[in-house]
């Protein structure tokens, strides 16, 4: 019984979220043509948190679906604003963009804090937002399946994302509508981020490091890189989940933390490598 109610949903959720988040990072990096961009470094996670918080304050009894929709709307507009901003920046200093993205995130966080403090739920917000799969049970995680169609879309659209990333005139020359591609890409990313934040909480860095590692291994040829990206994202989360469960058995370290540490350190190394 434990197996059907808890283990299977948990494993499925881990695989889907891992694959979805790393693909989102991939899409964002292609669109912005910047290796350091991802939901973590563009305010995406914070926007989703904010969406949930607002749903929580405005409709305390809101169902999971309402929270997710709210998160989706916030994430999508945040992503739009961010990509729009990236487009406007003339000299694309590789490091400057994620820097502004992180700032962007902390602003959203400070706005959230403003309201959370008012409603005296600061500690609660920390709690539901730290990625954790232990609460994933049958009947409570199904929103996560929305990631599945996104994976398919990203596979169909992969080339188009890269083309759009090379610029509007580049896309137009090849007969593509630049803006449509950007919208589809960002909507996909927002769906993944909001679905995963609502069901399991924020998991930082996955979308950032996996595409980078894959790119280092086999370059950016999309047809080859995408499946590996999804696969490695899933593997990372599974490994982190197992680690989190074994290290302090019988307790559990939330996955948001194990991934946060492993991902943070990896990103750290990536930056150092890049700065040479």
């Amino acid at each position, binding site marked *: 019984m434990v197996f059907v109610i808890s283990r299977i949903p948990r494993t499925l959720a881990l695989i889907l979220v891992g694959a979805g988040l790393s693909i989102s990072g991939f899409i964002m990096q292609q669109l912005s043509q910047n290796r*350091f961009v991802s939901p*973590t470094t563009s305010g995406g996670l914070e926007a989703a948190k904010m969406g949930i918080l607002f749903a929580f304050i405005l409709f305390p009894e809101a169902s999971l679906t309402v929270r997710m929709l709210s998160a989706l709307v916030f994430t999508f507009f945040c992503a739009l604003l961010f990509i*729009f*901003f990236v487009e*406007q*920046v*003339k*000299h*694309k*200093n590789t*490091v*400057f963009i*994620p*820097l*502004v993205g*992180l*700032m962007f995130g*902390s*602003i*959203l966080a*400070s*706005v959230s*804090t*403003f309201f959370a*403090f*008012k409603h005296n739920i*600061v*500690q609660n917000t*920390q*709690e539901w*937002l*730290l990625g954790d799969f232990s609460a994933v049970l049958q009947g409570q995680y199904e929103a996560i399946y929305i990631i599945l169609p996104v994976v398919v879309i990203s596979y169909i659209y992969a080339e188009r994302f890269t083309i759009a990333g090379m610029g509007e005139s580049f896309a137009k020359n090849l007969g593509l509508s630049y803006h449509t591609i950007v919208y589809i890409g960002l909507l996909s990313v927002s769906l993944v981020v909001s679905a995963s934040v609502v069901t399991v909480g924020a998991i*930082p*860095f996955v979308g950032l490091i996996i595409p980078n590692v894959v790119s280092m291994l086999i370059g950016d040829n999309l047809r080859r890189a995408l499946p590996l990206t999804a696969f490695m994202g899933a593997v990372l989360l599974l490994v982190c989940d197992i680690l989190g469960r074994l290290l302090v058995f019988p307790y559990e*370290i*939330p996955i*948001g*933390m194990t991934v*946060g*540490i492993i991902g*943070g*350190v990896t*990103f*750290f190394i990536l*930056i*150092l490598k*890049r*700065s*040479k």
Partner: protein
Amino acid sequence: MKQRQKIIITLIILVIAVILFITYNMGNNIDYVLSRRGIRLATMIIVGISVAFSSVIFQTITNNRILTPSIMGYESIFILFQTLIVYVYGDKAFNVISQQENFFYAVLLMLFFSVFMYLLIFGRQRKNIFYLLLLGMVMGTLFNTLSQFMHVVIDPNEFSIVQNFMFVSFAKMNVKLLGIASGTLLVALVIAIRYIKYLDVIALGKDHAINLGLDYNKLIRLYMLIIALLVSVSTALVGPITFLGILVTNLTYELFKAKKHIHIVWLCSAVSCICLIVGQFFIEHVLSFSTTVSIVINFIGGVYFMYLIWRTRKKIS
């Protein structure tokens, strides 16, 4: 002429704000109220000046008006430190460690952190400063995750102790601490003012600065040290106010057309003090302490930051 009027008006507002803050609705116990308010006012002035100096210097050496030094992870390491103390000692935490000791260790930790980061980036190869910032922010995210985890684990009573540190409050100061803080600030200011004239040249950009004969790398190292000192002092004193720096520097640049950095830093200090005092006044008397000044300033500063990005979107970078 107009410039001078603006400066005078700013100073008058500052004086009015100070007087109002001290004298408004004193009640019966005048001596007590006066001393409490005096301490709070002094704290705000120290913080205001630290934030103004560090932000102006930081923005000039990074050549960017939408960054602030406190994003580099200082605040996260501060919160992590405070959380750790509470995590280890529980609600007895602040019987074990005095406020002065806490301040001292926090400053030391933040300085150590910034030196470590600095060596990591600049030790091997002199690469652009944005890498340093990004690295700082990533470390910040990492620390945040750790703190977040502990926040979830500790019980709500203990969390409320941590929460006190997360959100600035000027109410919990004592005179001894104020003395130490103002001493540190003074040292930092003396160094800063001595070297501030070079900022006018550095504002032209690295290549021009070197062409004009400055030892660019040495100066940047020095400025980073000053910034680390200033940010550590203000953070350890009252906790994080991330967006105050962006808010006040940009207000200053918008209001005054000052060119020389020596003028800019002082004008900015005035603006920054006004923001804090007026903000605190409103929280005490209008909102009756229902929120804290840092949350309000971060909120306003954050919204203002978005507006800045929106407005200057073609010129940024």
